[in-house]
């Protein structure tokens, strides 16, 4: 079994390219029935409004909610994080449909428009613990959301200080209402059970530690499933047999990774 990447719009090619780099097969998901063939799902970055609209046209939301409910690992980056959140502020008029499951409040365009997009070295002690490498990670924030408030079962994996520009903008007022503590720093990566959410884009960097971390979550999950359903067939076997060669032979070309 492979890892599915929701391929309505956005950086799904980039996610599949990173998975390929670490020897895991990524599959594009565009229809509800395709979800049955994957062990886990990545919801990529993109325009969350666009992705929600397309998911709505294709009646994808019930299937996605079911997928989350079954406890299968799901990772949302940027727009994907918005999808997974239980509550979103700063949405378009009329709101947008969400998958939900991650007990947190997300602000949609917390860091402002493109001109306020930035790169920052963020501290990721948890990832460095599990995957090794340096304690920092190059986070690319593009019209990024932020996590204002988390429930008791949610672990915060990374935080960034709030840029001065945001502090002085109208958004500050909205933040004040939700959680005044967010005026200094906000969470940008969270984990709750098998749900992972990041406000930045690990798929745009050469560092694949977040993807390896997610793959480990998937492997742990399938291991558990195996123990529970020992008598059943091998459908839930480990998705990654070290260096799945067929996954590496996909000739599709990807965009280069730009360094700052």
């Amino acid at each position, binding site marked *: 079994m492979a890892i599915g990447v929701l*391929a309505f*719009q*956005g950086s799904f090619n980039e996610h599949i390219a990173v998975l390929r780099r670490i020897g895991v097969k990524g599959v594009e998901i565009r229809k509800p029935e395709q979800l049955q063939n994957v062990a886990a799902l990545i919801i990529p970055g993109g325009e969350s*409004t666009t992705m929600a609209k397309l998911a709505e046209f294709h009646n994808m939301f019930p299937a996605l909610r079911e997928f989350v409910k079954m406890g299968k690992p799901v990772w949302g980056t940027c727009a994907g994080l918005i999808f997974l959140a239980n509550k979103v502020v700063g949405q378009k*008029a009329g709101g947008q449909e969400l998958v939900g499951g991650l007990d947190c409040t997300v602000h949609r*365009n917390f860091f402002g*428009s493109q001109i306020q997009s930035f790169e920052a070295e963020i501290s990721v002690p948890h990832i460095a613990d599990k995957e090794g490498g340096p304690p920092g990670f190059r986070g*690319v924030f593009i019209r990024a959301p932020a996590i204002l408030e988390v429930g008791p079962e949610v672990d915060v994996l990374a935080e960034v200080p709030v840029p001065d520009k945001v502090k002085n903008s109208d958004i500050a007022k909205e933040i004040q209402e939700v959680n005044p503590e967010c005026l200094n720093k906000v969470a940008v990566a969270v984990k709750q059970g098998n749900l992972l959410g990041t406000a930045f884009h690990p798929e745009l960097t*050469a560092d694949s530690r977040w993807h390896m971390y997610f793959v480990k979550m998937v492997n742990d999950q399938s291991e558990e499933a195996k123990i529970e359903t020992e008598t059943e067939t091998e459908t839930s076997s480990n998705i990654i047999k070290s260096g799945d060669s067929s996954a590496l032979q996909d000739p599709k070309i990807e*965009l280069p990774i730009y360094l700052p």
Partner: protein
Amino acid sequence: MSGSGVVTVYGNGAITETSTNKKSPFSVKVGLAQMLRGGVIMDVVNAEQARIAEEAGACAVMALERVPADIRAQGGVARMSDPQLIKEIKRAVTIPVMAKARIGHFVEAQILEAIGVDYVDESEVLTLADDENHINKHNFQIPFVCGCRNLGEALRRIREGAAMIRTKGEAGTGNIIEAVRHVRSVMGDIRVLRNMDDDEVFTFAKKISAPYDLVMQTKQLGRLPVVHFAAGGVATPADAALMMQLGCDGVFVGSGVFKSGDPARRARAIVQAVTHYSDPGMLADVSCGLGEAMVGINLNDEKVERYAARSE
């Protein structure tokens, strides 16, 4: 390596920025374009149309005073839109808002940067401000998208700092022929380049008047080193899917949506066609009953002005 946008696949500085623009590196500029991949960017002239585009699933909107078809019909000098209009559109939607500046008119670009649009289109659809030079896009924090008709033109624009390329097509005609010609020209040149001996690349770079390092990088990647959309003449879902199957990352739709009989439905159909571009069954479904398409212009007519040929 700080202060220079280097591409890891080559390691030794294939794309280096000429400015010391630390706050908004090239990676962040290209990053937004990457988030638009697989999406449709629609021309809108007011907040109401912007809302229709957002509801239909557009991944960004281009704020304009007149769509290209009207610029063609009315003539006169086409300039940057009123910033007031762009601000209104920005307030109306949550998706990124782009706006057009005249080629070479860097002050229009400065104004657009000041009002905080997400992307500037240095566009040949507006009347030229400088017929020799383009804007030096490295000087801006805001990312730029530029038009091209062939590989050389695309790589010249990237060297000037464009973080996204669109093939020009012929805007406001509802006629896909030029768009196909330009996409095929870019893709064809890349295919030729890929099979070329490394020794021949120097002469090829000279022939297409493009910087050698970018030509070499394109050869190694097998694609343009930035996101590549198609534009100019897309009027139906099938047109949009054609552009995607030819290898583009997404589609601009200008006059095609709001000059048609049922804009909301057509917009939604084109968005779906771009997502499911390789699924003819789905394309057939979304193409059904869309009402009248825009009338379009036959490009065999000598009197039709060619916008695409305005800049090199």
